[in-house]
């Protein structure tokens, strides 16, 4: 069936598109274009890698302070090839900055920013700024110590601009401090705004590159017309570009694989913690130079210079290069002033970066020495009396235990004065809750308690668990003394008569109450009996103090408002019998 005249055939748009692509690739190149001209192509390739791996990371990433770190950890440790994908995203970002530097230097040395290509340079500068924006916003997203403190400093630098600074700071952070309001906005900028701008910028840049053609090397401005253009881009220059991409790709895979195996240190640091004072903030390496300016310039106006004036001037100068440099020559030999200034700028950036890195290293070393000295001092303080075998008085032990508790940062998981939180026991009344002997043994070797191992049987990981701090006997004694002293006689009234051994009849009555009358074993396991929905009671007599058992049976909600244990309203003498029975389980 013939189509009406003028009607395009169904395949026509596709054919036109393919033809346009071929025409785009069929650019004719001037002579002396070769391996030096591959870096733009490599950048395009690395950007495509970023788009792909960025999409993959976004499949799991969750921009919330409660889950960002956990989601990145999930990607890093549990998603199939997750460590490699994340490593590629990180290393590709670094390679982009390096390649960008080489690309800018190449264009500068070849004088390719001169008319008619002045706006090609400007669009390239825009892309460079976008890359720095990507780096700055992406750095925060893992929400580990490094990203938290790096961004803390970074936003402050942006916020110290004279006049508008406080507004910039508040806008960047979304609130008064770095936190839940900041993370989604950095994420949105990183994955929505910047990619859209980047797409437009790359299109503009490529359009100009193709429109004006590759600069014929070393030809004066205005004398391009006579240069023959014979060799087509595809496949001759395309093959070189492609080979360079392959090299970049091999490098990228190697770096990402090494990183995911921990060759460059842990790929993910500890979770962001604003209260951490033992950390030297380190921005991403390409901001180290800028950070170093803050160190070497004096307080007051010097800081304004470092944070605002110098960076702003540098950007303006960079963008304005083609408009300031009116020399029609392209050969570096005939552009001594431009080459000297360019070299000086490059040298300044490189040496500032190296100096910044050295300074951060120095501070990290100093911090480590301080921490080691503090630890040695604490050790010496606690060790010395023990060596003399002098029996320590209780108050000293308790005080040493308290400082140890702070050192070990127990309060990161345990509440110290409130009710238990998130399934982690509170330490507010630990002395009323558990027996001292058990506590000492547990602190020395904190195996998981039985009802947590039931989670393991179901193939789930316990969400929280007690780390093994490898305490010495002394340290365990101090900590035990301190915790055993934490009693709350109002919440858990002492029951001295329950400490005494009971007659077998009471234990037998208690057993009947626990197993049959009140059926505690619906939720608790005792030996082979019952389900480990709540804590396992098989050895509760070793662990729980009778006072505590008495209090929790009497009214569980009084100890923990959110507990799922039910108040079964036992009569007073029934409680006593039940406690006698439970205390006998050893």
């Amino acid at each position: 069936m013939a189509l009406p005249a003028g009607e395009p055939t169904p395949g026509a748009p596709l054919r036109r598109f393919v033809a346009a692509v071929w025409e785009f690739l069929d650019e004719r190149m001037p002579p002396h274009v070769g391996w030096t001209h591959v870096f733009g192509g490599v950048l395009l390739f690395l950007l495509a890698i970023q788009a792909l791996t960025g999409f993959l990371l976004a499949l799991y990433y969750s921009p919330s302070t409660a889950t960002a770190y956990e989601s990145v950890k999930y990607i890093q440790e549990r998603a199939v090839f997750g460590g490699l994908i994340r490593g590629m995203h990180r290393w590709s970002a670094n390679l982009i900055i390096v390649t960008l530097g080489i690309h800018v230097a190449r264009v500068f040395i070849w004088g390719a920013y001169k008319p008619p290509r002045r706006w090609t340079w400007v669009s390239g500068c825009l892309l460079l700024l976008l890359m720095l924006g990507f780096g700055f916003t992406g750095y925060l997203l893992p929400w580990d110590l490094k990203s938290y403190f790096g961004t803390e400093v970074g936003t402050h630098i942006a916020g110290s601009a004279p006049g508008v600074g406080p507004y910039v700071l508040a806008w960047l952070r979304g609130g008064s401090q770095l936190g839940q309001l900041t993370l989604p906005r950095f994420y949105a900028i990183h994955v929505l705004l910047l990619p859209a701008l980047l797409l437009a910028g790359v299109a503009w840049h490529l359009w100009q590159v193709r429109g004006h053609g590759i600069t014929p090397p070393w030809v004066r401005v205005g004398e391009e017309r006579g240069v023959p253009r014979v060799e087509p881009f595809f496949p001759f220059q395309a093959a070189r570009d492609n080979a360079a991409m392959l090299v970049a790709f091999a490098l990228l895979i190697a770096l990402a694989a090494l990183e995911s195996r921990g060759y460059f240190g842990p790929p993910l640091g500890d979770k962001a913690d604003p209260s951490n004072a033992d950390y030297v903030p380190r921005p991403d390496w390409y901001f180290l130079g800028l950070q170093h300016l803050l160190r070497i310039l004096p307080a007051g106006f010097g800081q304004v210079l470092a944070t605002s004036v110098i960076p702003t001037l540098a950007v303006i100068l960079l963008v304005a290069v083609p408009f300031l440099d009116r020399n029609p020559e392209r050969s570096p030999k005939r552009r001594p002033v431009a080459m000297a200034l360019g070299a000086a700028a490059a040298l300044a950036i490189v040496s500032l970066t190296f100096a910044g890195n050295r300074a951060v290293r120095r501070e990290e070393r100093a911090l480590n020495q301080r921490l080691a000295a503090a630890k040695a001092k604490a050790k010496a303080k606690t060790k010395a009396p023990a060596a003399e075998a002098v029996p320590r008085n209780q108050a000293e032990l308790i005080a040493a235990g308290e400082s140890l508790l702070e050192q070990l940062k127990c309060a990161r998981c345990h509440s110290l004065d409130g009710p238990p939180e998130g399934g982690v026991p509170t330490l507010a009344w630990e002395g009323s809750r558990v027996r001292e002997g058990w506590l000492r043994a547990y602190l020395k070797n904190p195996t998981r308690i039985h009802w947590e191992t039931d989670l393991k049987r179901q193939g789930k990981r316990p969400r929280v668990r007690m780390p093994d701090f490898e305490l010495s006997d002394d340290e365990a004694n101090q900590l035990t003394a301190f915790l055993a002293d934490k009693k709350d006689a109002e919440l858990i009234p002492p029951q001295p008569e329950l400490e005494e051994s009971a007659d077998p009849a009471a234990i037998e009555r208690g057993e009947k109450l626990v197993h049959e009358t009140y059926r505690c074993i619906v939720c608790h396991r005792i030996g082979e009996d019952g389900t480990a929905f709540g804590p396992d009671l098989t050895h509760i007599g070793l662990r729980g103090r009778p006072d505590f058992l008495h209090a929790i049976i009497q009214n569980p909600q009084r100890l923990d408002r959110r507990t799922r244990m039910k108040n079964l309203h036992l009569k007073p003498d029934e409680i006593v019998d039940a406690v006698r029975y439970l205390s006998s389980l050893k």
Partner: protein
Amino acid sequence: MPTRRRALTLLIAGMNALIGGILAVPVFGYVLTPLLRKSGAGAWISIGLAEDLQGGTEPRRVDFRYKNDSGYTVETVTGYAYVIQGEDSAPRVLSPICTHMGCNVAWNGERKRFLCPCHGGQYTADGRNVAGPPPRPLDQLPTRVENGALMIQVGAQT
């Protein structure tokens, strides 16, 4: 030089195939993570004492909540089910998920039917599909009685 041109074109194709091939392995592995990782067998949870749930002529709704490990967070999932009397007077537990497209059905006491709000599916009190598009009766959840508590298995992959 058409031969050099051709060779270079092949070289480009080869290099890109190499990049694409190497890249495809981690990318597909990563994307298919949910299919490659074993999902949990489902948790057994107690919905009450079995004797409390016995008797009654109409399906009885029980609400429950449980913790579900969803990768990097543990979330509290809420759900409900209907307890009905089996022929041997043992309780059976019906999932309220319509077997057609997975909407939640609810018991309508006046019409003595489970009604699905989405596409008009209807089930009898014992879960048989009697009207509308559902292809099979309501699913029964695995149950067992442990220490007097009626336990059901939730969250299993079906």
